[in-house]
């Protein structure tokens, strides 16, 4: 019996291949979108970490020679023998015709995880790297190097400008520095019970890790990408739900016949569940594979970055990690379960003798739309409540959920109302029929339209978020990394000497004076700044009083960071106690995306008064020609290379990495829209067969099939238009919640929201285009429906 019943159930798919394809493809696409976003998120994170790490200098603790330029390799070996996980770096310059190239030699085998290639895809590359000697450099540098060095130079645009990256052994040969090293990177994880470094290597000084600057900003970006992942999942669920419930709807008559012929309901439902599980696993598998392809296509840059570093694939680059393919499969199976549970429930509840025709859509739908609308309204009210009174990250995400689900559920009701409104305006009989028929279509298409709503809203939200983020990030980098070079020393005694050198060579010198203190009971870094053109021109404030820098310069005001202001509950013009006995008004609030602590800025003289014994250990230096300045400092004044950080390089590189992430999100936007269009296409195709009885009378009464096809197309565009118009405010709300709510909860600061109307207009056009394209084929099919099919409706025998 089971085999016979199963044959009948499956025969449905054989006869309705399109439906089968729609279901499998819908499920696979939903899974693909989810796992693609997961993969991209993970890879973006990995690549950013790797990029930050190679630049380098800041991420890890390092050991530098106390005196002189070089470390003896024996010291390195002694440290390794003692159990210290350290990795050698040798830096130096090679002269070329046009100038100099900075050669950085690293040891891929001992470098800390995020720098070193963890696994090799092509061993030959590693061999090349280690034995024959290969250098990696950006195109211009590579060109300059060819002919100068005997090693092979591989062009890689992702290597920082002016730098050639190579293996430590090659660097030693090239730089004629046998058995010598510049510095040692200390891996973050070290075994227990190690001897003191000072005991093993007394000649080395420890330079602690520096804050890479925008770590927290990056974290925030990833959090937002995760939210995007959830959104794409929601889009997927709607698509799966749409395809599966339509597929079940079409098998109602078969279910009735099977039961009348004696197949028990429990057996039937059991069979359908097993069938679904098989489909879900099949489609999930395809989806994960597809997600992998999507990620691979979108990520060549990221992969290239990592490959460029050592000429070998880094393990982090798109491996089929169990957590994401498993999560992809889980999404497929759970999504199917969720989507099918309603349909199965309907079948279980359906009286055996219920009409064998697919339900009359519109009859049930008015009530359903109102009920969904009520649920949606409740969700939106809860959301508003959370927005006003709620606190905490969980509630912030709950707010997002309320907003999205509420908006999706209210959509059918709004569409119905819009169509009814248009119906009231209709003059001719044809338009009356058109609007009435559109109203009947709304329930059948509403899941696909919900998917379109979420996809468009996600696109608006994410691109607003990403673009706002970019604007903020660029401003922030301009502000914080304004000095072209940073010079850092260990010995306070050398500070006045260094400052004198810098003053003689550079345009503007900015000593970095800071102490850790507490202001208004919040742990805070207090800075003494030399107010000059750099601060005046580059710093942007979230809020400011008059003449900020004049008042700070004269010691009459303080600038505090947003974190400090928010935590301490203070704002512009409030008085804060900066040090015992010193209270100053706040002249401005500055955004700080790089730091969990608070920050406060006062003038250098005031600072030196408060902390006379403090000497600056870091200097920011302004220069029109940082490369020359750097050479002058190292060659004429003997300042070690490792003490100088090239900010413009870091800035360019960070921007580059972010640019790539933006490209990826842009591509994802297009993809979500494509998937939503696919959902529309599939629901239209599936609806087409159900709709023949509704269209036949209109045809019989004198509308040509061609006209019917045109109207079908118009209908899809109208419905998509209403949906998109709703999606834009929803997307903006989404971005607003992410930027000014989730961020504040997670990181303590708000990102400003910028609007990009041109972008939204383009998106709307895309959404309409997608809907029109999706409707085109069903419309053409409709226009070509053989009259015999339409006549069958009247024959009343099937």
């Amino acid at each position, binding site marked *: 019996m089971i085999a*016979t019943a199963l044959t009948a159930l499956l*025969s449905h798919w054989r006869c309705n291949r399109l439906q089968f394809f729609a279901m499998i493809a819908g499920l696979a696409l939903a899974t693909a979108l989810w796992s693609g976003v997961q993969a991209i998120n993970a890879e973006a994170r990995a690549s950013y970490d790797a990029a930050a790490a190679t630049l380098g200098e800041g991420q890890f603790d390092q050991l530098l020679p106390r005196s002189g330029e070089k470390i003896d390799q024996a010291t390195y070996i002694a440290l390794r023998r003692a159990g210290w996980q350290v990795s050698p770096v040798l830096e130096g310059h090679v002269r070329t015709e046009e100038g100099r190239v900075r050669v950085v030699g690293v040891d891929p085998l001992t470098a800390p995880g995020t720098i070193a290639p963890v696994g090799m895809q092509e061993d030959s590359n590693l061999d090349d790297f280690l034995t024959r000697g290969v250098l990696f450099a950006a195109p211009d540098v590579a060109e300059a190097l060819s002919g100068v060095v005997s090693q092979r130079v591989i062009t890689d645009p992702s290597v920082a400008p002016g730098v050639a990256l190579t293996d430590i052994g090659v660097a030693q040969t090239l730089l004629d520095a046998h058995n010598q090293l510049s510095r040692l990177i200390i891996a973050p994880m070290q075994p227990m019970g190690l001897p003191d470094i000072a005991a093993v290597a007394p000649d080395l000084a420890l330079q602690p890790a520096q804050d890479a600057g925008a770590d927290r900003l990056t974290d925030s970006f990833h959090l937002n990408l995760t939210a995007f992942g959830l959104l794409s999942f929601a889009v997927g669920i709607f698509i799966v739900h749409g395809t599966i419930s339509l597929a079940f709807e079409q098998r109602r*008559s078969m279910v009735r*016949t099977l*039961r009348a*012929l004696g197949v028990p*309901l429990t057996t039937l439902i059991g069979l359908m569940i097993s069938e679904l599980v098989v489909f879900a696993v099949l489609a999930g598998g395809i989806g994960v594979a597809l997600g992998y392809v999507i990620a691979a296509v979108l990520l060549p840059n990221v992969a290239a970055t990592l490959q460029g570093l050592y000429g070998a694939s880094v393990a982090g680059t798109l491996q089929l990690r169990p957590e994401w393919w498993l999560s992809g499969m889980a999404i497929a199976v759970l999504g199917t379960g969720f989507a099918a549970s309603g349909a199965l429930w309907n079948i279980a509840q359906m009286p055996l*003798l219920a009409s064998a025709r697919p339900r009359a859509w519109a009859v049930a739908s008015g009530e359903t739309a109102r009920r969904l609308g009520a649920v949606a309204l409740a969700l939106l009210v809860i959301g508003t409540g959370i927005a006003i009174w709620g606190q905490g990250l969980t509630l912030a995400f709950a707010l997002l959920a309320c907003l999205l689900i509420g908006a999706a559920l209210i959509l059918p009701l709004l569409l119905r109302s819009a169509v009814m409104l248009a119906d009231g305006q209709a003059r001719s009989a044809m338009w009356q029929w058109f609007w009435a028929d559109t109203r009947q279509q709304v329930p059948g298409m509403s899941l696909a339209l919900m998917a379109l709503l979420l996809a468009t809203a996600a696109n608006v939200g994410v691109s607003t978020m990403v673009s706002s983020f970019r604007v903020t990030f660029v401003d922030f980098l301009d502000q914080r990394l304004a000095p072209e070079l940073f010079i850092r020393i260990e010995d306070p005694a050398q500070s006045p000497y260094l400052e004198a050198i810098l003053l003689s060579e550079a345009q503007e010198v900015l000593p970095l004076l800071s102490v850790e203190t507490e202001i208004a009971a919040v742990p805070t870094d207090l800075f003494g700044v030399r107010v000059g053109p750099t601060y005046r021109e580059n710093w942007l404030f979230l809020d400011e009083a008059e003449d900020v820098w004049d008042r700070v310069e004269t010691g009459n005001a303080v600038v505090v960071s947003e974190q400090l202001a928010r935590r301490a509950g203070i704002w512009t013009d409030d008085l804060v106690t900066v040090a015992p006995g010193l209270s100053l008004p706040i002249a401005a609030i500055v955004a700080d995306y790089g730091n969990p602590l608070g920050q406060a800025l006062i003038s250098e003289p005031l600072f030196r008064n408060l902390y006379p014994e403090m000497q600056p250990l870091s200097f920011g230096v302004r220069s029109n020609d940082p490369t020359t300045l750097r050479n002058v400092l190292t060659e004429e004044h003997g300042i070690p290379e490792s003490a100088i950080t090239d900010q413009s390089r870091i800035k360019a590189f960070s921007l580059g990495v972010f640019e790539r992430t933006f490209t990826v999100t842009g591509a994802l936007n297009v993809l979500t829209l494509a998937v939503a269009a696919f959902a529309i296409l599939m629901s239209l195709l599936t609806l087409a067969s159900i709709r023949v009885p509704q269209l036949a009378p209109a045809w019989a009464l004198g509308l040509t099939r061609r006209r019917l096809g045109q109207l079908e197309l118009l209908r899809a565009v109208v419905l998509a238009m209403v949906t998109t118009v709703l999606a834009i405010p929803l997307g903006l709300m989404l971005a607003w919640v992410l930027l000014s709510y989730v961020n504040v909860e997670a990181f303590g600061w708000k990102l400003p929201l910028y609007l990009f109307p041109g972008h939204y207009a383009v998106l709307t056009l895309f959404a309409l285009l997608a809907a029109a394209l999706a409707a085109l084929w069903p419309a053409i099919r409709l226009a070509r429906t053989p009259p015999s099919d339409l006549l069958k409706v009247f024959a009343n025998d*099937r």
Partner: protein
Amino acid sequence: MVLTVHDVTKSFPGAEGDVPVLRGVSLSLERGETLALTGESGSGKSTLLHLIGGLDRVDSGSITVAGREITTMSDTDRAALRRSDVGVIFQQFNLIPSLTVEANIAFQARLAGAFDADHAARLSKALGLTEHLAKYPEALSGGQQQRVAIARTLTARPKLVLADEPTGNLDEATASEVLGQMLRLVRETGAALLMVTHSSSVARRMERHVNLSQGHVV
């Protein structure tokens, strides 16, 4: 007795409380007997047929099919009874659209695990379906489709055939022809037949005739 219906009542929820449709219906059917059930539209003929087929539940009374009381049976047991002992033919939508005519004919017998290919072939031939076996139902006319439904039911050799206006959608000539074939084959297989019909000419060709009126059999 293949079928006994005793004092069955059934009402449906209406706008103002329950509306009684059957108010105590009793009848019985012997092996091989044919019975026409007539009555006005809305008199409850289909309702009674569904109750006998175990497709719906009685409010009170008892129904035995092939000696087994079905009113107290579980859904699963009633489904098993339908597979093996009862064949139901509706006015339309009888066939599984995605299976060929041949698969449809074999379907119920296969469900019951009692498929006899020779028997099926004889029935197909007798009903003039041989040349349509590879087609799908949508390619058949209404009369042909009903013949497929009849073939399917009889292939499973049920003890009781329940038919609800099986020829209601057919023109008179075709209806008469299909009915003739059906009666002949039912007699051959020794099944009892209970057929709902509006038509007095159809009713006259059956051995017995009952009329349903005001919820009672007359």
